[in-house]
């Protein structure tokens, strides 16, 4: 009892305090502690955000001051030359811009992979979630094991297979290579989601004479649209900024996805750091906006699926 009374006295004291007016006070935290918590969080935020801001800074630097030891966020003589060069090429140096080509390549490869993965997963995850059939446990254990296979591990056999099938240096090879990692993960995520939907709905429909297939298409799929979107996003993000596999499968410049393309800027420091940063900003802003916008659902998808408690 003494503990509660003393803490409620503290609360009363704190309520009159100056800090109370600005910082909302947590579970019995003193104003000083609240201040420290905010300071710690602000420091963490700076560490999290500053390197990202640096990329923007460098993208705004005019070419003659790329090499500076300044740490200012808005550089002197900020200019958009780098963005211009990345988007529209440099006619004066006779260079075309491949930026849109890279984006197009990335988008087509990754979206086709993700659509395939989601379709395969939406259908098979339903079977895993709702049917008890011989082979089910084996299938699930297999799916879990695939999570343990090093990303690069199957790359070598895949590479040789694709080479034999003449699919190196084509979109198809990369689509197949990305499907390797995205299909099992998507099945796992969706199975987790389906299991959270109560069985009662389906059972009611089944009693009313609906077939299993009708139940799936008319009840399960509409109910799981958000999960399908999440699974698509996961799969998309998995392939979207992938570098190592793309580097092996695609060797022709005109097929480069954006990570490969942007890396051609990043590989020499002095010449193209500004252009690399500009390209990065152009790519990262929509992606980050989408990510932050959808993070709530993404997180719920994570906790439902692969990292299910």
């Amino acid at each position, binding site marked *: 009892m003494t503990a509660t009374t003393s803490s409620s006295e503290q609360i009363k004291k704190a309520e009159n305090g100056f800090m109370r007016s600005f910082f909302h006070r947590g579970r019995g935290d003193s104003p000083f502690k609240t201040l420290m918590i905010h300071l710690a969080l602000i420091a963490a935020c700076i560490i999290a955000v500053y390197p990202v801001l640096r990329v923007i800074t460098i993208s705004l630097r005019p070419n003659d001051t790329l090499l500076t030891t300044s740490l200012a966020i808005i550089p002197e003589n900020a200019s958009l030359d780098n963005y211009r060069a990345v988007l529209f090429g440099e006619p004066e140096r006779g260079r075309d811009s491949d930026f849109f080509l890279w984006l197009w390549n990335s988008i087509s490869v990754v979206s086709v992979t993700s659509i395939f993965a989601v379709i395969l997963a939406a259908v098979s995850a339903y079977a895993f979630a709702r049917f008890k059939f011989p082979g089910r446990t084996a299938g699930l254990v297999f799916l879990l094991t695939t999570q343990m296979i*090093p990303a690069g591990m199957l790359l070598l056999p895949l590479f040789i297979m694709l080479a034999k099938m003449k699919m190196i240096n084509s979109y198809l090879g990369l689509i197949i290579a990305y499907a390797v990692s995205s299909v*099992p993960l998507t099945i796992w995520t969706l199975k987790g989601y389906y299991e959270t939907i109560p069985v009662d709905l389906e059972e009611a429909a089944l009693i009313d004479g609906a077939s299993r297939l009708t139940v799936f298409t008319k009840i399960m799929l509409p109910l799981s649209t958000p999960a399908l979107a999440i699974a698509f996003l996961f799969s998309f993000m998995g392939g979207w900024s992938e570098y190592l596999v793309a580097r092996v499968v695609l060797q022709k410049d005109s097929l480069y996805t954006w990570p490969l393309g942007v890396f051609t800027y990043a590989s020499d420091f002095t010449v193209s750091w500004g252009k690399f940063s500009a390209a990065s900003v152009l790519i990262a802003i929509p992606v980050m906006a989408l990510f932050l916008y959808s993070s709530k659902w993404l997180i719920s998808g994570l906790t439902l699926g692969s990292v299910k408690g």
Partner: protein
Amino acid sequence: MDNTSTLRRYLPAGLWVLAGLAVFFLLRSWIAPYSDGISLNADVVVASIKQIGGFVLAVLVFLAVLEIYFYQIFFRKPSNAVNAVVVRFIQVVVAAIALMLLVVFLELTDLIRLGEGALGSFFRSPSTLFDGLKTALVNSQMVESGGATMAAGGIVVLVLLGLFGLIQALSEPRHSRLGLAYLLVLPAVVGMLFLIVYPFLYEIRLAFSNASLGTQATKNASYGLEYGWQNLVTLFTGNVAKDAKFFEVFVRTILWTVINVVFHVGGGMGLALLLNRPMKLQGLYRTLLVFPWAIPTTIAAMALRNEFDSKYGMFNIILGNIHNFVTSVPFLNWLSFIGPVSWKQDPFWAFVSILLSNIWLGIPFMSVIILGGLQSISSEYYEAAEIDGANRFQMFRNITLPLLKPVLTPAVVLGVVWTFNKFDVIYLITQGGPQEKTDILVSSMYKAAFSFYRYGFTAMFALVIFIVLFLFTLFYMRITGGLKGATD
């Protein structure tokens, strides 16, 4: 719902389309003056859509044929004895041809060798027929040689559909309890077999070969147990990529994994505990703190690689400023050892640089997961503990940790596995340098395969890594009993 007018129902969609078109034309008119400098043009787009579209079509048709075939096996039964003979005959022939094609595919990818004898030509007969059909089509001037495959494929599919139609006519429906389940998992199973099981078997076969650049990959490679043994001996006693030795890289991999996961979980836990309270600005903090997770890893890694530059990189500028500050203040002189560091040349600092980068990238994910776990813990536990006079540490130790376990266990297991395998950061920042002193197992393996073309060796290497990870996971699950409910 039904009495809303058609206009009203389709107006929003129409407006969206209009808005999309408006944005498109606006961008187009804005970009048009510069379009000479942009290498993406309509031709490129059409060509890639053709390529991808053809592929998608082929896969969909293949899956559809497969589904129909198995649907008839599960859900149709022949209506009388005579029909049964016909139906089963067609089904067996189709399956046999499919198996023959599969064997040809295995041969195409060099998993097996049929040779030129009678056996080989028997298995190749369906594909020989298919090629014959193609040449016949081209010779009869019906199609261009470019579209021959598609036309011939179309004919084959039509024939198959005709056969399926015949089966459908000769059979009657029947009930199958599990048929639907198998039909639903079938596409995924086929996908898994092709994408994972087959490459895995292929890898095992490669591991027992001497495939390398000298043997033109698998073309002239020899297979045998002695090659597998040789690869294994090289792995443990020789050089794994160029100069590095296995155990040296193995120890570094363990360090890399442990340090990363400890900091990820520790940092994530710290941030989550700080955030898990009613407070102002919480939404803003959460948004800013997930930045490292939100930014595409490739961009972050490449940007950080430049920031580790010895002169113009952010880290050395900051360290240099600290150094100047410390030496200018008399009583801080003893700190003057802090100063710019050669991130790229010194193996130790190179390792620190990739660790810093990966820790920075990984903390937000863990903090989000842990925060989710913390928020699901009811505050009643803490109130009860407060009444009992428990202090903050005791509450953390006896309430928070045990209740977080179901969230933490899988997150840590997956975190370990992912970190163990994660080398894009390493590859993009240091490329394993200097002198392979920052390589971990997986990045050494990648280099052995794609920089040094030691295929057989790499396959054995990959199998060993897989076994290490597999043992770890089994061990961890045995200890913690985690992931138990995952397959129920």
